[in-house]
Structures are given as C-alpha cells and as structure tokens.
C-alpha cells in the first residue's frame, strides 16, 4: 500500500513538473527554472523556522517570495547592470542557495526535518510517516500526496484556462504584446507556478533533482512531436514512466529513489534522441521530401 502512495505522489510531481516545464522549455527559460528551484531554499528555511511546521502555508509564501526574488534579481542584473544573462543566473542562484545553507546551519541545528541531504534529493521514502487519517484509523495516504494533488489541480487548471495566453507569449512575445496582452504579468504568473511546484515537490524530490522533472521529460517530448498538446501529454507520460520505472529500479538496487527517477528520465531522453536521429536520417536519405517543401 505504501508503495502505491509513494508512486502516486511521485507521479503527481512528474505531471506538474512536465506540464510547466514544457512552457519553460518553449520560452527558453529552462535555466531560469533551475535557478528558481535552487533559490527557494532560503524562503523555505526561514518560513519553516517561524512556522515550525512542514505543512504550513507560510512555507509556500516564503518560498514563493524567494523564487520571485530570484526572478527579479536575475532581471535586475542582466537588464540594469548588463551582466550576461547566464552569469546573472549563476550569481543569483548560488547566492540564494548559499544563504539557504547558512540559514540551515544557523536555524536548523539538530533538526531532522530540513537538513542538507533532504535539500538535495528529498526523502520520498519517508513521506508515509506524515499520514492523513480519517476517524483516527482510516489511512487515506500521506499528506505530501494531497499537497501535490492540490498543486496539480492549481497547475492544470491555470494551464487549461490560460492556455491561449501561455501559448502566445511562448511563441511570439512581441506579437502578444501588440494585441494588448500584458506579457510580463503572464511571465511572472508562470514563474509563480514554477515556484509553487518546486516548493511542494521540495520535500519529496529535493530542490535540485526537481529540475530533472521540469526539463528532461519536456525535452524528450519536444523531440518526438511537433504539436503543442501532444507535447504536453507525451511530456507528462514520459515523466510518469520515469518515476514508476525509477522507483522499482531504486528498490532493486537499493539506491536513492528520486535520483533513480531522474536517471530514468535521462535514459528515456536518450532513447527519444536516438529515435529522432534515425528518423531525420531516414527523411533526408529517403524521398527528398524536405527539399521539395522548400519551394511552393
């Protein structure tokens, strides 16, 4: 039973990340997602220190503030100070991550809930200790699963309702602005969703490996399909396959579960990459179809 709950939780993480990651990838902001996932750490630690409870909404608020602060800071460095964009990302996330580490050392001495390891790869195997019981004895699953579920509902409904907007700003931001869409609001909305996902996934998969869930499945899907909705679906599916296969492999080899899930995502990507290479060779060597379409 516990296995199923762990897998279900991980599946929810994978779906949330894959859907948002698709838009990050299309907006060429994968590294911004990476930066945000590192940068939420100080927010989480401070909020945890004051709220003293893992499930608190303070954590969410604190981390969201930290995540958006990172987005602003990167913007400030690259636009106002004119530091190269990738250097701006590097400076910002290392700083915020370092602050988070120091805060852990100062505020969390001897506290088992937030320590260095969980920052890195979460403790998905332990989520079952934090159970939700109905009538004191009916076990309906770990709290983390329901947190992920709520986050998933928020993410999916935001993406469904805002689909047109996200698509427009991802393909052609200037055009979106020209028809009167407030693109920076949409941008920060997307980043807020990414932060939300990172934070709720934090205790399950850790702050760094979450990047793997955000970026690798969408990249696999991007190689397989050239349509947006199939890309979202395939992205979520490869995410799910990675976590399920990764879970059992990790149990078999007795290694980190989250780590193995991301490794599986990488291996799936390698498959997609090889298939796409074979396919493009075939088309080129085949009918000359590509050349023919070059002219009308």
């Amino acid at each position, binding site marked *: 039973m516990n296995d199923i709950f762990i897998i279900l939780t991980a599946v929810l993480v994978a779906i949330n990340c894959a859907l948002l990651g698709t838009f990050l*990838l299309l907006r*060429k*902001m*994968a*590294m911004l*997602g*990476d930066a945000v996932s*590192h940068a939420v750490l100080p927010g989480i630690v401070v909020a945890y220190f004051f709220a003293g409870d893992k499930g608190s909404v303070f954590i969410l608020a604190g981390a969201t503030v930290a995540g958006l602060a990172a987005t602003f800071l990167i913007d400030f460095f690259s636009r106002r*100070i004119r*530091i*190269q964009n*990738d*250097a*701006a*990302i*590097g*400076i910002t996330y*290392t*700083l915020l*991550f*370092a*602050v*988070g*580490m*120091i805060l852990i*050392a*100062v505020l969390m*001495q001897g506290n088992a809930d937030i320590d*260095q*390891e969980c920052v*890195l*790869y979460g403790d998905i195997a332990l989520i079952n200790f934090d159970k939700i019981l109905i009538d004191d004895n009916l076990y309906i699953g770990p709290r983390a699963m329901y947190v992920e579920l709520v986050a998933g509902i928020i993410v999916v409904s935001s993406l469904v309702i805002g689909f047109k907007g996200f698509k427009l700003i991802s393909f052609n931001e200037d055009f979106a602005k020209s028809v009167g869409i407030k693109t920076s609001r949409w941008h920060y909305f997307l980043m807020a969703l990414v932060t939300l996902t990172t934070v709720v996934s934090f205790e399950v998969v850790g702050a*760094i*490996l979450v*990047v*793997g869930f*955000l*970026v*690798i499945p969408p*990249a696999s899907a*991007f*190689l397989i399909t050239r349509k947006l909705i199939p890309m979202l679906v395939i992205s979520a599916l490869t995410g799910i396959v990675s976590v399920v296969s990764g879970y059992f492999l*990790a149990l078999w*080899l*007795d*290694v*980190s579960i*989250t*780590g*193995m*899930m*991301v*490794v599986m*995502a*990488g291996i799936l*990507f390698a498959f997609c*990459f090889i298939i*796409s*290479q074979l396919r493009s060779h075939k088309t080129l060597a085949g009918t000359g179809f590509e050349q023919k379409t070059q002219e009308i």
Partner: protein
Amino acid sequence: MIWQSAIDFFSFKDPNVVYVLAGIIFINSSSALVGTFAYLRKRSLLADAVSHALLPGICLGFLFAGEKNMPALITGAFITGWISIYLIDLIVRKSRIKQDAAIAMVIAFFFAIGIVLLTYIQKHGNGNQAGLDHFLFGQAAAISKNDVWLFAVVFVVILLAVLLLYKNLVILSFNPDFAQSVGIPVRFIEFFLTSLTVLAIAIGIQALGVILISALIITPTATARMWTHHLKKMIVIAILISVFSGIAGAFVSYTRAQMPTGPWVVVILSFITFVSVVMAPKGLLRKFIVRRKNENKINDENILKTIFELKGFSEKEKMLVFSTVELTEKRLFDTKKLDAGLRRLIRRNLIQHKGNEFELTTTGKKEAARIIKLHRLWEQYLLKRTSIDTDHVHSGAEAIEHIITPEIEKELEKELGIEGIPEDDY
C-alpha cells in the same frame, strides 16, 4: 573573543588553518583564471553543468580506487565533467533543443547519477566512504596537506597555460572565427581551455561543493568586469576578489564551528558584487552623481542663456544687470534650482552681486555667448542634415548645446561653413 580567534587564525599556529588557506588560495585563483575566459566566451553556465557532472565522477573514482584517493577522485571527476560538456554540445548540435535546456538537463541527469552512486556507496560501501558527501556541500576544513600539493600543481599548470597561450586565448575568446582564419588551432585550444576549466572545478568542489563551485567561476569575473575593461586587470581583480572572499569565508567558519565555509565564501563574494554594482566606475552611484552634475550644468547654462536672451549684448557695455524676477518671467525656472544655480555661477565668477540684483561678468558674457552659439550651430546642423520642422528646431537643440565639446564645435563650424554666432534664431 572574535579578536582572539582572529589572532589564532592569522598567526597560522594551527597547521590545518595553513592548509585550508593555502588550498583556498590555489582553488580560488585557478577558478577565477579559467572563469574569466568562460565569461568572455559566454559560457558561464557550462561551468555550472560541469560542476554538477563531477559528482558521479567522484563516486566512480571512489568505487575504482576503493578509498578516498584524491587523484583517483579528480580523474573520475575530470572524465564525467568532459562527458557532460560533450553531451551538451551533441544535443545542441544534433537536435532542436537549445543550449539552456540542454545544460539544465545535463545538470539534473548527472547530479541524479551522482546521488544514485552516492547512496549505492553508502549502503554497499566498506566504511571508507566517510567524507564523500563533503563533495556535495564542500568542507574546506577537510583539506589536507596532500590536497594542497595537488591543488598547487593544478594551479601552476593553469597559470602557465594561461601565460603561454594568453594571446591565443584572447583572440579565441573575442572572435573565434577570426582566430581560425589566422591559423590558431582553435579546436585544440578550446579543448585545452575546457580541460583546464574542468580541472579547476574539480579541485574546487572539495571546498565549495558541487552546487556552489560555479559561483567561483562566474561571480568574480562578472564583478571584475564592472571595474575594468582591461583584460589583464580584470583577471587580477577577479583573483583578488575571489581569494579575499575565500579567506574571509574560511575565517567565519573558523570562528563559528557550525558555519559552513562554502556558503560563506559565496555570500561574501556576492556581497562584493553588490558593492560593485553601486560603487564601480560605471556603477549606480556614479550614474546618479553624473546625472546630478548634468542637471546642474544644464540649469546653470540655461540661466546664462536666459540672461542673454533677456538683455542681448551685441552693443558694448549694455546694461547687464538683471533680477531673478526678470529671469523667471522669461523662462520657467524652479526657484530653488534657480537660487542654487545663481550661487554656483557666482562661485565660478560668471556673475556677481549688484545690490539686490545680479550682473554678468566679462567671463560670464563670453560663456553665455558660447552657449547661444552652440545652440544655433546645432540648429543649423539639424536643418542641413535632417528633415525637421522649423518650429521644432529650437527644442531639438535645447539639450544638445550643453554637451557639445570645443572639438565638436570646431567641426560644426567647418561642416556648416559658419564662423561666430549664427544669425538665425528659431
């Protein structure tokens, strides 16, 4: 208390302190050196990928050697670091995926392999693995005498390579196509440079950890860049900033046992960055001061110009006495700014008090005439070279008269064929 530990720290009585400091100096200098070229080649984030990719290499090195043998670990790290760069390059070259996504993927993938291997070692290891997790977050205190020797060798190799290849590296970083065209072995030097970068990161992760080490590559150079445009100076500044932060970070963690070294190094480094953002030659502070100075200059020159417009002084010794009321009637001056401007003009001896009113001095008269001249020259230039409505010419010249240098003034006169003050006024 803090002084006592400062004395302990800097008296180097404790050999461990010496090892740590020497190690940090070599590590930080090496990473700042290669970081400069990474930054110039816009490859800062590649260093990020490499640093995460070293973790599986460290673990493999450990599995191979069966113990925490530094050369084995670094060799492993070097190999996986290189593979990560190759993979990023392969993905970008062969598919539609762009570089930023490729980097993010490789970071997560290699890191995950590292975590898997680490947990494997922890569960199946023979007990020698203690301290392997230092590579995650860095543990500067763990630097040993042998490590220092290794770091020193790496530093010397990097330094020599940079010194010997300096010219080629500069051309390559600035313009790789040109480098190729003049027969520089671009591919070889790129390979070499990347190897040095991987090496510098590899020796640094023991002190800083795989996540924060990229700060040592990126931050010092980006900060040094704010202070100078000169490449050699930039390298020196980057090394100084980095080494200073390293020593300061080590000191903090020496005084407070629970404080981690790596994060403090990064925080101090970033603090220097923020200070530079404000204080550097092109920083926010100078911008602010220059803007104020410009505003004052414009204000003062406008006062002089208004006096001219008010009185005119083509004839000799016409009345050059004026009151503030007259000035504000002619042009809408802010009273506070007008007063401050008049005070500055008096200090510069361009005007002087005359009872309750003011009087233009001889130098002031010259200065006013110069401004009017520049204004009208620019009006003429705009009319000649561009399409501008005559009712817009005046406003177009309004700000520019204050910035025209004597050199440009001469060129304007030459180009327009005008000497003295142009007659036409718009």
